[in-house]
Structure formats: C-alpha cells, structure tokens
C-alpha cells in the first residue's frame, strides 16, 4: 500500500503556470490538508490528479501504478474519487440515484448490491432522510454531503475533497468534521482542500501549502501555519516592513 504519490507535477495554460513542480505523497489512512490563497492552483492540481486535466509534465502514481493521463472513470475505478468545489449533482435524479451512479459505475456493482451499498453510504453521511428527494431540492449542507456520498459509493480508498465545507456555518462544519473522521477511521485516506482554517487544522495529519502554483510549505499543522512563507502568502508583508510614502 503506497497510496498516492505526485512527482513534480506542472500544469501550464499557455504562458500561465497554474501548478509548478509540485511533489507530495499521501499515506494510507492519512488526512492531508491542502491550503493556499485563491488561485494558488489547488483545484487545478486536483483536476490533474483525478484525470480531468493532463499535467504538462510530471507523474502521478496510485498504489505504485502510473496513472498520469488516464481517463477519470478509470482512475475512479482504481479507487480515487473527488468532490467538486462547485456542486454538480445530477439534478434530475433523486439523492439516492445520484449516489447509485457511483456504486453502479465506479464500484462496478450489480444493481442489488449497488443499492445496499448506496444505503450504507447514505447512512454514513446522514443523507437517508433526503433519499427520495430530487438532488436540487435539498439544502446546501446536504448537497455537500451528497458529493461526498457519490465519491464514497464509487468505492474509492482515496478521496479528494475540494472545499467540501464551503458555505457551511460553524455548527455544520463540526458535523462535517465528525463525518470526515468517521470516513478516515473506516480506512480511507483523504486530501482536504479548505479555506476554513479551524476545519483544516483540526482534522489534518499533515498540511501542504501552495502559492502561485508552487508548494511553499509542508509539515504538521502547527508548523505550516507558523511558517513565514505561508503567512506572507495569506497576509502579505508586515506593515512595518512596507515603505509607506
């Protein structure tokens, strides 16, 4: 079991380097936090890993197999799934059916088994009460959990969560964190992109910080948030060091 390993990934859009030579690895059973200001390249990095984009250079290994440039559905079936920052449920389907798609196609289960699996996943992320509602008629926190459920139902061992707590209030964040810990304890590894520091600090085993597409820090949560470069990336220079005219 080697989990996920990214080796010097770069992604260029024309002249713009959205991701530059980022390397990191994710160990089994670990929660890796990923932070960085807006535009730091977190979502682009995720899209490269999951196969939506093909990185300009660099290699991605999933359980020691090179998955660079593979199609997303293949990567999904190999055990890695992502939730999107911009929620895209299958609107015309019920919540149950949304999750069922993951179980049928991602985990490649037969209909009867897929249904039991779907029920199990919905129970885990507390969606059972919404099962028969259309996915566009449920509140935002439930939609966030739906994204999570779809990824889980696909049988993934590695989950990439792109701002899965965006738009939640503090109370809902606490609930979401409990669910994430439950998921981790069931033997899955997670990469969590999050802006909410309290959430990412409380849950991550390690954190990496990105800025302008490059990795600027990596380490335990306390180390990273006290890192000079990270503080500078978020807040800029100290006021006293700026030359004020």
């Amino acid at each position, binding site marked *: 079991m080697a989990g996920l390993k990214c080796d010097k990934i770069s992604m260029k859009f024309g002249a713009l380097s959205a991701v530059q030579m980022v390397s990191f690895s994710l160990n089994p059973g670990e929660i890796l936090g990923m932070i960085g200001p807006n535009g730091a390249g977190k979502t682009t990095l995720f899209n490269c890993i999951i196969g939506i984009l093909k990185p300009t250079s660099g290699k991605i290994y999933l359980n020691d197999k090179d998955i660079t440039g593979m199609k997303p559905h293949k990567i999904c079936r190999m055990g890695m*799934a992502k939730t999107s920052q911009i929620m895209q449920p299958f609107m015309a389907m019920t919540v149950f059916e949304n999750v069922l798609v993951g179980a049928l196609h991602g985990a490649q289960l037969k209909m009867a088994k897929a249904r039991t699996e779907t029920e199990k996943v919905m129970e885990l992320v507390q969606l059972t009460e919404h099962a*028969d509602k259309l996915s566009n008629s449920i509140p935002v926190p439930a939609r966030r959990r739906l994204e999570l459920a779809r990824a889980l139902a696909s049988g993934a061992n590695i989950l990439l969560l792109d701002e899965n707590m965006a738009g939640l209030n503090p109370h809902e964040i606490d609930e979401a964190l409990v669910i994430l810990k439950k998921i981790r304890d069931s033997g899955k590894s997670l990469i969590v992109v999050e802006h909410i520091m309290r959430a990412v600090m409380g849950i991550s085993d390690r954190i990496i910080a990105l800025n302008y597409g490059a990795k600027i820090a990596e380490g335990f949560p306390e180390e990273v948030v006290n890192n000079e470069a990270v503080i500078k990336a978020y807040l800029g220079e100290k006021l006293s060091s700026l030359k004020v005219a």
Partner: protein
Amino acid sequence: MKSRADRIILLLFLLVSAGLFFVPGFVESEYLLRLITVVIFWVGIAGCWNIMSGYTGYIDFGPVVYFGIGSYVNAIAMTKYSLAFFPSLFLSGVLAAVVALIIGIPTLRLKGAYFAIATFAFAEAMKQITLEFDRTFKVSFFQGSDGITLPISGHDNAFFFYCILPVTFLVMLTHYFIEHSKFGYGLKAIKETEIGAEISGVNTTAIKLRAYITSAFFLGLFGAIEAYWITYITPSEVFNVQKTVQMVIMTLLGGMGTFLGPIVGAAFLTLLSESLGTRFVEYYLIMIGAIIIVAILIMPSGIIGTLKIRKRLRFI
C-alpha cells in the same frame, strides 16, 4: 427506482401492445389499419432518437442516415443478392449499427452544436454518396437518382403491421430497460454533467457509443421495412432531413428522455396532421406549425416532461 407508477405504466404498455397484436383481425378498414401502422412506425422512430438524444442530451441531427442505410442495405441485398426479406432485414440493422460504431467514435467526442452539425453533415454526405457513387465509378450499385425498385412483396398492410409492431415494441422495451439499469443511469448522468459522470466512474465514451449503436440498429430495421413496404427508394427520399426533423419534434413534444415521451409525441403529431390534413388540405401545415409553437411555449419540457415537473411526479 421502480416506483408503483412505473409498474402500472409498464403493465398498461404491455396490455396495449398485446391488444394491438389483434388489431388487424378486427379492423376492417384498410385506411384505419394503415393509420395505426404509421403511428406505431413513428413511435418507434421517435423512440430511436430518444434513446440516444433524449437520454444523453446529445442532439443527433442525422439519425435519418441509419434509416437510409437500412433502406439501401435491404434494397441492394434483396435485388442484387436475392436475399429473402427477413435475413435482409436483420442485415440492414446490423450494418447500420456497424456504420454507427465507425461514425460514433469520432463524432461522439464533439459536444453541443458541433455534434449536431457533424451528424447532420454525415447524413447529407451519405445522401450525396448514394446519388453520385455510380456515376463516379461507372458501376450500377446504388443506382443514383434513378432509385431502386424492390421486389413487389404482394403482402398486405397487415404483414407490415406485424413487421413494425415488434420493432417498436423492442424500442420501447429498451426504454424501459434504460430507465432502470446501470446503462440508463449512466446515460442520464451524462446528460446532467459529463465530467461529473466521468469522475463517478461512468465510462462516458462507451455508454454514449452503446446508445448511439442501439439507436442506429433499430433505425436500420425501420428503414429496411419501409423500403420493402413502399417498394421504391431514392436517396433524397430515404435520407430526407424531414424525417430527422419529425423525430426531433415528436420527441420534444412528448418529452425528451422519458418513456412515454415518444409515444405521446408521435401519436399526437401523426394523428393531428392526419385529422387536420384531410379537413384543411391547404392550411393544415400552418395550423400544425402554430400548434407546435404553442405547445412548446406552454410545455417547454414536452407534454410528459412538463407534467412530471408541474405535478412533481416521478414516473418514466
């Protein structure tokens, strides 16, 4: 999910299909029998379009090409290779499906308007190929604009009724299967968001291709049956874009991506144009046009689709 409403609809569908089986025995009027046959024919054809475009949201603007290929395969197999009708019919479906496989791989990579244009262009290209092939290569194969006369069958309307009914039945059964299967959930997921479907593990290319080929196979069968029925085919007739337009309008009117949509849409439009056409010979096309416009304005998701949304119902 199989709801009770779905089971009731399936039961009704099976009962009606079984009932239709006895229609030629009861209906004395040849006109009425022919009219019923035409309705069933269009339900099946609109259904073919619905399988691909209705469920995936990929607007295919050249489905008539597979209808035409079916017609031509059947005509050529029967006249040039003296094949009997039923083996020839099967061959027509299979060859249409094979062409769909070859054409589908490159065109299904396109999205939106580009896919519509590519399929439309392919249909027009096939029409030109059948028109010009013989003159260009100095052979007698497609017989260009002279068309091909098929062997006169000597069969009555009831025979063709019994040819068309099972094919339409199979098309609609495919719909029911789509509604409640892994394949169907894949198609519906693609319609919503293709990337979302991919990251949930849906092999979008393979699923789209499967729908495209299924649709082409049935269209090939319909094309072959029609060729044998009217016994004379020309490229501009069998590849006529008007057939495509009819399939699209019928399905849109009934409701895209629903089981009942093509049935309701095709029956509504065929019966409407029949009843108006006989009474208002000069104005009926204007009237139908107006009715379609009003219908789409009131019910933008089609009759069945809008009913489902307005009444918050969930059925197929």
